[in-house]
């Protein structure tokens, strides 16, 4: 009796094993297929649908967010169905895979591709040729795009302007941030004051450009000035100007654009400095005061050396930011009136002029300019053990 039952069990378990194997196989194939199909339907809906905007927005959000979560869930489920040894081996790649694939597609490979494109003339490497044919074709121009980058007058203007952005933009936003942080630290109104200074950080460059365009608004001298700056200037008897477009003071008209970024970024440096200042031990400051140091000596001799690391990391961050500045210049002046910077030149060459070889060379130059600053920046942040 016992034996038969055992045999029955064995048979049943064999059958059920086969069935479950087939079931798993079917599931393993059909679940991703169904999932991909559903995701594809969502994609088509979003691309072609005439539904009301609010419905599309909702579908977009649910589809985009839910789709990614669904894919992880499915792939995890599939890998967990495998034998344990394989699960352990494959699961990390389910977790890391998407990130690595996307970073590869969007950053790593494009860097190489952009460099490759930068060696060709305006249309890039000719299509339909293999690698060697491309390199020996007429379109291959070697490094001459780079020679143009460093000799063309508009590019030289852009380099000069970016230098101004770095020198004035980053230095002044760091200085203002530091000043506000130190002052707020001693004020009863610390929270309110810091909120107001920090507020512009949440405003887009396009929004900020409108705000400042309104301040710089120009009307001929005999009309009422609606721009604040010109109203102030004329009330003191000066002549109104279209400040960022004031061509006779090139390159100093760039300062009117740089002010915008100082206004936006000072809050950022203030927050970091404020936290760093709070980290200075009170005993240190007390000791300085007992020794008869005045407030300025305390600031320059104790505070600044103590938060030096923060100053460097904030400064490098803003430098990187100003190196890549684009939106403000593009919306305010479009690069006219001697205000082009590297990123606007890149945009103009790549997309307005359709000269992808030259544009790519500019992008590579930008990358090379950013690398040392970024390296220094990351090193600083690591040393401070943020988070």
């Amino acid at each position: 009796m016992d034996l038969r039952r055992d045999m029955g069990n064995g048979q049943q378990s064999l059958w059920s094993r086969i069935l479950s194997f087939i079931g798993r196989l079917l599931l393993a194939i059909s679940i991703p297929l169904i999932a991909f199909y559903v995701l594809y339907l969502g994609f088509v809906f979003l691309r072609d649908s005439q539904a009301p905007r609010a419905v599309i927005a909702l579908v977009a959000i649910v589809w985009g967010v839910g789709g990614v979560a669904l894919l992880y869930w499915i792939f995890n489920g599939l890998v967990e169905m495998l034998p344990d040894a394989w699960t352990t081996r494959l699961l990390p790649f389910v977790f890391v895979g998407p990130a690595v694939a996307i970073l590869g597609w969007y950053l790593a490979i494009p860097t190489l591709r952009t460099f490759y494109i930068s060696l060709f003339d305006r249309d890039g490497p000719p299509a339909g040729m293999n690698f060697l044919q491309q390199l020996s074709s007429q379109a291959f121009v070697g490094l001459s795009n780079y020679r143009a980058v460093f000799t063309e007058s508009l590019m030289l203007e852009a380099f000069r302007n970016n230098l101004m952005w770095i020198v004035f933009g980053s230095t002044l936003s760091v200085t203002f941030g530091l000043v506000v942080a130190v002052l707020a630290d001693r004020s009863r109104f610390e929270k309110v004051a810091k909120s107001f200074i920090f507020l512009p950080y949440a405003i887009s460059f396009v929004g900020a450009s409108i705000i400042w365009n309104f301040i710089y608004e120009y009307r001929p001298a005999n009309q009422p000035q609606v721009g604040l700056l010109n109203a102030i200037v004329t009330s003191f008897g000066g002549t109104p100007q279209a400040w960022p477009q004031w061509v006779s003071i090139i390159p100093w008209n760039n300062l009117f654009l740089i002010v915008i970024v100082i206004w936006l970024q000072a809050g950022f440096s203030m927050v970091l400095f404020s936290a760093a200042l709070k980290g200075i031990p009170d005993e240190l400051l007390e000791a300085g005061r007992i020794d008869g140091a005045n407030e300025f000596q305390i600031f320059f001799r104790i505070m600044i050396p103590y938060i030096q690391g923060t100053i460097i990391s904030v400064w490098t961050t803003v430098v990187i930011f100003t190196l890549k500045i684009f939106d403000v210049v593009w919306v305010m002046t479009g690069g006219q009136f001697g205000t082009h910077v590297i990123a606007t030149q890149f945009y103009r060459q790549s997309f307005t002029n359709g000269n992808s070889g030259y544009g790519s060379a500019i992008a590579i130059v930008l990358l090379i300019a950013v690398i040392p600053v970024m390296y220094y920046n990351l090193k600083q942040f690591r040393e401070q053990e943020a988070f």
Partner: protein
Amino acid sequence: MESGKRQKLLGSLFVNGTLLLLVMLWTIPTLGIFVSSFRNRDDIGTSGWWNVLPHREWQPVREIDPKELGVDPNGVMEIEGATGTFEEFREGIATPDGKRVTWIGNKRIGKVEVQEWVWTVNWNFTLDNYRQVLGGQDFVFKKPDGTVEVVPGDNMNRAFLNSLSVAVPSTVIPILIAAFAAYAFAWMNFPGRRAFFITVVALLVVPLQIALVPILRDYKALNLNGTFLAIWLAHTGFGLALATYLLYNYISTLPRDILESAFIDGASHFTVFTQLILPLSVPALASFAIFQFLWIWNDYLVALIFLGGNPEFELVTQRMAAIVGARGQDWHLLTAGAFISMVLPLAVFFGLQRYFVRGLLAGSVKG
């Protein structure tokens, strides 16, 4: 003792005074467009926004028809005690009793105003600017003299919804992907772990400009350009390196014991990740989410390139830039539009300031 107290008071006066000055400098630009966005279309173009504050200006007290006076505009005239030529009257001539006489209009059908220098405020506030900027249809604008002008609406509504549909998935997707990757880097063993992680950190230096041309080519080949998916993936790609790096910094410092006891209880990596790690990482996730959301909401360049060709999918920043380009003088639209574009970031900023600051301190700064 007394002098010490005085010095302290002076010091606090200096500190708070300078602070107040800086705060005002930083706030006035925003205040200007905020006030202007509620002002009448005609007022914005003819007087500065600061005229909403009490100030003194010439206000008409009486109107005179010059024909009744019988003066000759081509010669020297005397009106209400003021003497001068037509050109001088156009500028306004002061009368002995402190009033001013000004000729409005031309010589033949103009009128003369007697004006007084009085305190006044300019408070013609309206919501019309917002209606016009938000609406998609034509907007009927009534001028003060009764004529009607039809102007096209600016469809900011649609742009706002588009921006939301871009920003929310572009925030959540990279965070989800980065959190999975950060977990694997921190708590799983696999060949190439170190190499992959170093690559991720190295990619922090790549400015997104580098990727635009190649990615645009891919999108054109895949027929993806101008779709939501295209821009989600682009933002995911550009934000992922930083997200992974920051979340790794956080997740790798979580106490090892919690995870180990979960594994002993038979939990799988997926369960540990979703049930333990994600809830524990909420502070880090939230602060990165705020930043990513703001970058995307405020982004102009990426949208310009990957959504540029499709007006249906225009975002708030693109819409604003388009209004600047096409109607840079229409300040009633620009100011209202700018303020609409700022509403959400400012709400996020004020509502979640704590996370915001924490995120900054953790290095949430896009390289």
